[in-house]
């Protein structure tokens, strides 16, 4: 891609070499067993990846948006779960850096930057998905504490996390709280049998009279969704867009290798024009999605208010693109495409998840269409 700085190119190349050598070979087993071993977390932590979006003054890397995007692409290229491992906690660290009190930032961010403390973003509930403002979990002020009661579901890497950014209704308004793993009354239950991103160690949380210090409130009462969650979700959507590009890139690379080697009717299947059609669609759509991601990153780095909408647009396009590309990659591989000896079955399952998380395809369609109809100028 044109326009990258030398630093961005170098970091991308080094990250790819590291991931291909050290992590990618472990992915089939991690997917099968639905687990990310501590040794893998440690390897990623040693590269400073958990500090990607944390300000330098708190020990982070404070990377620009394009570099953050490139890292998501490279992680997504080997596994969507590895992307989750780094950039779902980043939704929390970014939200704390953006809206946390100074004391919270000093308390948490340095240890989150090193990976010593891993945070999880805990918004979704059994009954509350897209309509996230209406969380049913309740928080009540009691002296110098808040008491939390409720249930959370689909918390990415919730099995591994040390602290949760929990969204609860406080005085009837969405509000964000940091809940430590060892809080009495908090039960963390692993969720198994997931279709895609199976190594992401999802968890269900049950909060039963969890008493947390009042200072663990992030932002202010009533701004849990519009400020704290929104900051995390905007970053999350931007990152998933890039991660989807990486996932599709992996599908393309596997397909290119296969069409050169696999022979049918006496020639490599890449000679067959209907296979070529699928390859051409993959190449064009991946590049188009990458450019949308790049543009969203430029808006983000410029501090432009249109960045949020462009992150939605990039996420919408890239996730749909990834499911189509993964579908074609399986088709090109034929029977081999549905067997774990080849990686594309895993990519196909992972790709399906990207259209659901951080705003479904349908939620994005509504947001994009409304915006285009009401304020076309913001999509210039």
């Amino acid at each position, binding site marked *: 891609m044109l326009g990258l700085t030398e630093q961005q190119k170098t970091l991308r190349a080094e990250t790819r070499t590291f991931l291909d050598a050290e992590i990618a070979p472990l992915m089939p087993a991690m997917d099968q067993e639905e687990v990310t071993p501590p040794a893998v977390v440690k390897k990623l932590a040693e590269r400073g990846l958990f500090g990607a979006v944390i300000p330098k003054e708190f020990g982070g890397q404070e990377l620009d948006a394009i570099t953050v995007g490139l890292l998501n692409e490279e992680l997504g290229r080997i596994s969507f779960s590895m992307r989750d491992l780094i950039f779902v906690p980043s939704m929390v660290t970014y939200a704390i850096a953006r*809206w946390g009190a100074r004391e919270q930032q000093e308390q948490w961010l340095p240890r989150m930057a090193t990976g010593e403390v891993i945070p999880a973003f805990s918004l979704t509930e059994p009954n509350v998905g897209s309509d996230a403002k209406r969380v049913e979990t309740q928080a009540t002020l009691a002296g110098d504490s808040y008491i939390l009661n409720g249930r959370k579901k689909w918390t990415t890497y919730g099995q591994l996390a040390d602290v949760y950014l929990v969204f609860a209704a406080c005085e009837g308004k969405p509000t964000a709280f940091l809940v430590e793993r060892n809080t009495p009354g908090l039960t963390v239950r692993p969720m198994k049998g997931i279709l895609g991103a199976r190594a992401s160690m999802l968890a269900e949380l049950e909060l039963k009279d969890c008493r947390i210090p009042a200072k663990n409130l992030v932002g202010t009462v009533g701004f849990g*969704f*519009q400020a704290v969650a*929104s900051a995390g979700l905007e970053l999350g959507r931007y990152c998933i867009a890039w991660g989807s590009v990486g996932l599709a890139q992996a599908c393309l690379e596997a397909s290119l290798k296969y069409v050169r080697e696999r022979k049918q009717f006496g020639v490599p299947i890449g000679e067959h024009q209907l296979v070529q059609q699928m390859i051409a669609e993959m190449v064009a759509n991946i590049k188009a999605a990458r450019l949308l991601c790049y543009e969203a990153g430029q808006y983000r780095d410029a501090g432009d*208010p249109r960045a949020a909408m462009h992150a939605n647009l990039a996420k919408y396009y890239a996730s749909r693109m990834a499911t189509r590309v993964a579908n074609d990659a399986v088709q090109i591989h034929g029977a081999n495409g549905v067997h774990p000896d080849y990686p594309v079955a895993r990519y196909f399952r992972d790709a399906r998840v990207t259209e659901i998380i951080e705003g479904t395809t349908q939620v994005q369609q509504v947001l994009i269409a409304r915006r285009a109809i009401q*304020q076309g100028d913001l999509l210039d």
Partner: protein
Amino acid sequence: MKAKIAEFLGRYLGNYELGDDEDIFATGYANSMLAMELVTFMESEFGIRIANEDLRLENFRTLNAMAELVADKVGVKQ
């Protein structure tokens, strides 16, 4: 300052004319994306930093309140 904020908000309000002291949340035009975009706009346009202690509805309820918040911040900076 107020005119610039009004111009930005105007993109969300269609043809609706917002009064300086009118509650924007009562107009029905304020959606969930507006808050973050408004904060980003105010920060980049006026070179200020809106922090967690500023997250109060009163600060964003009317054009006058927003202009006052910005004026306070610019004053602090100088």
